[in-house]
C-alpha cells in the first residue's frame, strides 16, 4: 500500500493535485492544535466518522446500488465492540478489528441475498434491515434496550517508547485516532478505485448488460463493494462507541442512514473520496451553527440540500466543472445561467 502511494505520487499524480491533498492533510493535523476547545474537536471527530460512513456508501454507489441502511453496519460495529469490551473484557484495539470483521461478515450474509434483487427492491430492503437492527438492539435486553449502553470504556492506552503513553484522557487523542481511521479508509478506497476493481465497479454502474456481456460477474463485484463498505462502517462504529461512551438504538436509526446518503450527495457522488469529506464537513458544521434555532435547523439544512440537488445535481464539487462547461458553450446556450443547466458529468446517458 505504501508502495502504491509512493508510486502514484511519483508517476501518476500531477503536482497540481498533490498540493491541495497534502495541505488538506496538514490542516487536518494542525487545526485541533490551534482550536483546542473540546467542542470544536468533538465536531471534528464527528466529521471524520460521517466521512468514513459516506465513503462506504459512495463505494456501493459506484457499483450502481443505492443503500438507505448504511447506519445498520455502523450499529453492528458499535454494539459488537461495546459488548466485546464490556462483557468479554476484550482489549479495545482487538475489539476494533473484530467489530470491523463482524460487520463485514454480516454484510456478506445480507449482501449475498439482497444484491440479487432488483435495484429498487435492494434499496427498499436495506431500509428494512436498518430498521430491524435498530429494533433488535432496542428490544433485546442483552443489547442494552432502548436506553442504550452507557459508560463505555475508553480505548486502552498505547505504550510508546521513552515511557510516553497515549492514554486517551484528552479529546485530541480521539481526534487523531479518527484521523488515522479516516486516512486508512481513504487509502483503501483510493487503492481500490485506482485498480481494475474500480474500473469494473464503474462498468457495472454505467451499463450492467454490457458489463455482463464482457464477462464481468456483476454480482460478485457488487458484493465485494457491499462487504468493504460494511467493514468501514463497522470500524467507524467501534470508534464511535468508545469515543462518545454512550450508544443508543436511536442514534443508528433510519434518519442516520438518510444523513449519510445526504453527505455523499452534497459533496458529489462522482467524487468518491473528496465528495464524502466535503459533504460531511458542511453538514456536520452547519447544524452546529444553527444550534440556537434547533427546531428550524433541519428545515434550513433541507432547503440548502434541495437547492444543491436541483441546481447542482453533481454535488458541490462539480461546480468548477459546471462553470468551465458554461464558458465553453456557444452564445445561444449561454443565455441560460450555468447553474440552471443540467450537469453533464452527473447524468450518464448510458
Amino acid at each position, binding site marked *: 500500500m505504501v508502495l502504491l502511494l509512493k508510486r502514484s505520487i511519483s508517476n501518476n499524480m500531477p503536482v497540481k493535485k498533490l498540493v491541495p491533498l497534502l495541505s488538506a492533510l496538514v490542516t487536518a493535523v494542525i487545526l485541533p492544535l490551534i482550536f483546542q476547545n473540546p467542542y470544536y474537536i468533538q465536531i471534528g471527530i464527528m466529521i471524520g466518522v460521517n466521512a468514513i460512513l459516506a465513503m462506504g456508501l459512495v463505494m456501493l454507489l459506484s457499483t450502481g446500488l443505492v443503500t438507505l441502511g448504511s447506519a445498520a453496519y455502523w450499529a453492528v460495529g458499535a454494539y459488537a465492540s461495546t459488548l466485546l469490551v464490556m462483557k468479554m473484557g476484550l482489549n479495545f484495539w482487538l475489539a476494533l478489528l473484530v467489530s470491523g470483521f463482524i460487520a463485514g461478515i454480516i454484510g456478506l450474509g445480507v449482501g449475498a441475498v439482497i444484491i440479487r434483487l432488483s435495484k429498487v427492491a435492494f434499496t427498499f430492503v436495506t431500509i428494512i434491515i436498518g430498521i430491524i437492527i435498530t429494533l433488535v438492539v432496542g428490544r433485546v435486553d442483552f443489547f442494552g434496550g432502548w436506553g442504550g449502553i452507557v459508560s463505555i470504556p475508553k480505548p486502552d492506552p498505547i505504550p510508546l517508547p521513552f515511557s510516553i503513553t497515549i492514554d486517551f484522557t484528552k479529546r485530541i487523542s480521539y481526534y487523531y485516532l479518527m484521523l488515522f481511521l479516516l486516512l486508512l479508509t481513504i487509502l483503501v478506497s483510493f487503492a481500490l478505485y485506482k485498480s481494475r*476493481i474500480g474500473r469494473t465497479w464503474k462498468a457495472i454502474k*454505467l451499463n450492467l*448488460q454490457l458489463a455482463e456481456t464482457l464477462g464481468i460477474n456483476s454480482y460478485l463485484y457488487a458484493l465485494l463493494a457491499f462487504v468493504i463498505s460494511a467493514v468501514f462502517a463497522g470500524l467507524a462504529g467501534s470508534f464511535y462507541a468508545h469515543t462518545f461512551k454512550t450508544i443508543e438504538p436511536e442514534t443508528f436509526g433510519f434518519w442516520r442512514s438518510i444523513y449519510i446518503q445526504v453527505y455523499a450527495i452534497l459533496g458529489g457522488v462522482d467524487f468518491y473520496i473528496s465528495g464524502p469529506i466535503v459533504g460531511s464537513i458542511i453538514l456536520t458544521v452547519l447544524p452546529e451553527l444553527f444550534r440556537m434555532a434547533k427546531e428550524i435547523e433541519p428545515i434550513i439544512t433541507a432547503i440548502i440540500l434541495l437547492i444543491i440537488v436541483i441546481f447542482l445535481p453533481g454535488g458541490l464539487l462539480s461546480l468548477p466543472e459546471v462553470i468551465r462547461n458554461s464558458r465553453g458553450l456557444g452564445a445561444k446556450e449561454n443565455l441560460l445561467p450555468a447553474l440552471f443547466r443540467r450537469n453533464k458529468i452527473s447524468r450518464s446517458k448510458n
Partner: protein
Amino acid sequence: MALLEIRNLTKYFGGLAAINGVDMNINESEILGLIGPNGAGKSTLFNMVNGTDRPSSGKITFKGHDITGLPTHRIAKMGIGRTFQATTLFMNETVLENVLTGFHLRYKTELWKAFLHTPACRHEDRTCRLQAGEILEFMGLQSLKNEIARNLPHGHQRILGICLALATRPSLLLLDEPATGMHPEEMNNLVRLIKKLREGGITIVVVEHHMQAVMNLCDRLVVLNFGKKIAEGVPEEIRKNKEVIEAYLGTD
C-alpha cells in the same frame, strides 16, 4: 461438430412465441448471416445464445458444452462475444478505457494483488494497455483512443462496440446490426474488417438489414420469420427463395 448448435429453441413472451422451434448450426470460421423482417426474433435469438434471455425450451450447445440458461458472464467467459442493436458503450469513458473494461477476462492476477498494486499486476496492466492499443489499431481507431466515446461519430461508435466484444477474446462473435447508420464507405470498411476477423479465426454471426452488405459478407444465410426458420443456404439460393421474397415483400 458445429461450433454452436441450437436445437428446437423456443422463447415465449407471454403467450407470444418470439422464437419457435428453431434449429440451426454455426460452423467453425464461417460468417453466418441471420436475416428476416423486423420482429422475426433475431435479437431474441442472440439474447438467448448470450444468456440475456432464458429460453422457454430447447438447447444451445457451444463447443460441446450445454450453455442453455447460463448467466451472461459465464457465456462470455466461454468465448461468445456480442454487440448490441442500439449502440452500447461506456459513453462517458475514453475509447481506450472502454476497451480495457472489455479486458476484464484477460486479467489473470488475483484481485488482492490488484488492490495492493503489486509489480506483477502493474506489469499486467501495461501489457493489457498495449494489447488494447493493438485491437484499436486493427480496427482503425488508434488515433481516437483518448476521445470520450460519446463524442465519436456514430460509425466509429459501432466499430468501438466491436472492439469491446473483441477485447473478451471471443471465438464466436454475434454482431447485431453492425452497419446501422453507416454510410456506404464506412460499410465497405466494416465488411472488410469483419472478413479480416474471420481470417483471424473468429466465427461470426451477423444480423443485418442492409442486403448488399449481407450478400457480400456472408458464407451462409439463415432466414427467420415470425420466430421460425424459413430458409437456410448460400446467399444466391436465398436470393431466389420464394418464401423469403414473400416474407420480405408480403403476399397478395
